[in-house]
């Protein structure tokens, strides 16, 4: 077993991917202490450090501060313990439940309609044989990712204007009546979904493209030998090859399920459609930051986080049952 590992390391080192060649000759047993491991693999630990520090600072330390959901915050300490008072205020507010339902609906729509699109884009891009055409399409579909939601909202508001928007011009050309999509409570969630799709499909397809590239070429050669056409190769080689990536990203997305994108919703919101697209994050922003009710906002955020954790556990178990793979 050790010999095999050494062989693999030597092979990798010959590609220049391992920092110290001699490391390959001195493998530590798995029982070696942490310090010894750090000394041997320090470049990898160094690369991990920024990410670990980021998560500790911005994701783990704040867990402790979430205790203000049970307190009345005092700038001059100490805070006053109020128990579940803020949760009671939240749960008796009809707005909060409407906000929660909106979040679930919008997130569900995004999961159902936005999540598969990058996979389809990656599969399609993989089939484009012309290198220059592929690069052009890739650039075109990546570009929206670099635009802020402020700009994208401006573009969509202009494009969807009932008086001079391009979308209504087109539908009008075919005899349709002008429609105000941005103030239509039935359409606004679809506007959110479509704009999210437009912004993220290209960029998110990168991961799937990377996964496709990693598929062993021999599998395609074997499929070709068996007489598979392009569609069959996609169906029986490419898609199964990226299923682990899809499952992992699906589970990770499930954890973010209740984060329906604060920036997007704020920029697409107006008085009429707020009741349809007001989500937990916008509620927390309004109540917490704009009116200074930090404890109430933290209670809402904490509730959302607990639901998110439950969802990620469920998605993990579901994936394990279905594909045998989960996040651990």
């Amino acid at each position, binding site marked *: 077993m050790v010999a095999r590992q050494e062989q693999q390391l030597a092979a990798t080192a010959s590609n220049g991917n391992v920092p110290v060649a001699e490391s390959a000759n001195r493998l530590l047993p798995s029982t070696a202490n942490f310090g010894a491991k750090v000394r041997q693999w320090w470049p990898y630990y160094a690369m991990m450090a920024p990410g670990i520090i980021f998560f500790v600072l911005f994701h783990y330390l704040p867990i402790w501060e979430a205790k203000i959901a049970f307190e009345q915050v005092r700038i001059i300490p100490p805070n006053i313990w109020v128990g579940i008072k803020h949760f009671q205020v939240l749960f008796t507010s009809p707005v909060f439940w409407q906000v929660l339902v909106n979040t679930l609906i919008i997130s569900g729509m995004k999961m159902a309609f936005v999540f598969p699109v990058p996979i389809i884009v990656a599969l399609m891009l993989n089939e484009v044989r012309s290198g220059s055409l592929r690069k052009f399409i890739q650039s075109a579909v990546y570009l929206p990712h670099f635009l802020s939601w402020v700009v994208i909202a401006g573009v969509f508001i202009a494009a969807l204007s009932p008086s001079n928007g391009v979308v209504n011009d087109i539908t009008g050309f075919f005899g349709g009546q002008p429609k105000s999509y941005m103030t239509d409570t039935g359409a606004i969630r679809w506007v959110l979904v479509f704009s999210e799709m437009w912004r993220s499909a290209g960029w998110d397809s990168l991961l799937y493209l990377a996964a496709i590239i990693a598929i062993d070429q021999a599998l395609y050669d074997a499929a070709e030998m068996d007489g598979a056409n392009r569609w069959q190769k996609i169906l029986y080689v490419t898609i199964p090859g990226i299923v682990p990536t899809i499952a992992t990203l699906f589970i990770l997305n499930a954890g973010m399920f209740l984060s329906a994108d604060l920036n997007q919703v704020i920029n697409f919101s107006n008085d*009429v459609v707020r009741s349809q697209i007001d989500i937990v994050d916008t509620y927390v922003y309004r109540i917490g930051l704009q009116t200074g009710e930090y404890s109430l906002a933290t209670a809402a955020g904490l509730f959302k986080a607990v639901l998110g954790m439950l969802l990620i556990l469920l998605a993990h178990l579901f994936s394990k049952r279905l594909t045998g793979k989960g996040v651990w």
Partner: protein
Amino acid sequence: MLMRKLLLATTALAFAMAPAFAEPVVIRMVSKDLVSTNPPDVKHIERIEAAMAAKGTEIDIQIVDLPSSGYADALSVMLLSGDIPDLIYFQGGDAKMVEQGILEDLTPWIEKSPNLKAALYPHNAERLANYPYLLYVYPPRMPQPVIRKDWLEKSGLPAPQTVEDYVALFTAIKDGDFDGDGVANTYGVTTADNTNELDSIFNQAFGVTGSWMKNEAGEWVNARITTQERDKIAFYASLREQGLFDPEYITSKFDVKEDKFYTGRAGVIFGSSAEVIDIYGGKMRQVHPGTELVLLAPPGGPAGQGNQAIDVSKEARGFAMSSLSEHKETVMALLDFMASPEGQLLDRLGFEGEEYTKSGDTYTMTDKIATWYARFFASANWTPPTPWMSTAAQASLKQVSDNFKPDNAFVFPADYAADLDATESVYRAWVYKFISGEAGMDQWPAYVAEWEAAGGSRLNEYARTVLK
């Protein structure tokens, strides 16, 4: 003897020199758009320090940098983290700080500050009496309608004085093709985001006299569920139906609203202050050289004439002093200096050679004055050596001052935050539904019921405990 005299003399000299070599008192100040990376801000602060030092107050004003975008939110987070500067400019979020005793009651301090006391406007005094923590020495702010002078002349109508006159003017703008593009694409009036700006001139005319009004049963209720409000909204709906009011106001931000004005897609828009009206005028002249703006008066109606009542429950923005500050006297000395004639000259006119030139006692403003703004106050008792604002902007100051009427709004306790948020959403959504025609005015009772269920009943009940 000689030694004793020398000793006495040196001691006396040391005492005399002591103030001159005193360490300046460090005042930390946070204010919107005041950042240490902006050279004019830094220069301005330095000359204020120098001017105060010349008057015997050694002060070192340290700017605390915060982003202009989302200033109120960033400020709240900073204060919550325990970083409390001596002088704080708020744009909301101050009530939470007052609840926790972080802000100083300014009443006794202003009483002792001669310049500041004399610089207050009547509405400042009322607001300070109700909420003595925020100081914002500026004329009252109120959205005021403006129109291009040449368009008003083209309409062939006099400046409107009644609701009917306004309808006639909007109709003339819509039908007249004043922009000459051959397309009927101009609305009489447009606003940004909501109908607040229209309310500023139509509230009084329709009898919406304050935030709280008595209903038929003689009980205090929120004005938003009164019959007067219903009539006003019905009027807005009729404007939209006749094509006089831009139906896309709700998706327009302020920049889009302005753009519609400059490009001839809207005849009348509202400026939030005299300075903003001047900016509109400047931008309009860039697009249409020689064009002037005219300020329009609020219309008279069956219920009277005047601008919307102005909330005097508290300042919506302004300077506050930290109750934790160890240098309150110096902070107040700074504020008092900025309200003085000398401070106003510095703060309102900018730099000599930049924003103005001076020959003898004659001041001449340069074009750069358009981009200069006072970092502190616009004192009520200060007269500039030469007026530089446009006629429309000056008229707006006079109009809002002449029409000043205090509102009966008051500050709600924090427990009502969720109710205020919910009722606001219900009101806003229904107003658009009525205006757009999605809901008929016969659905008014349904709106009222939803507003009350969203927390409005609680708000009304609380109001009845406050208003007598």
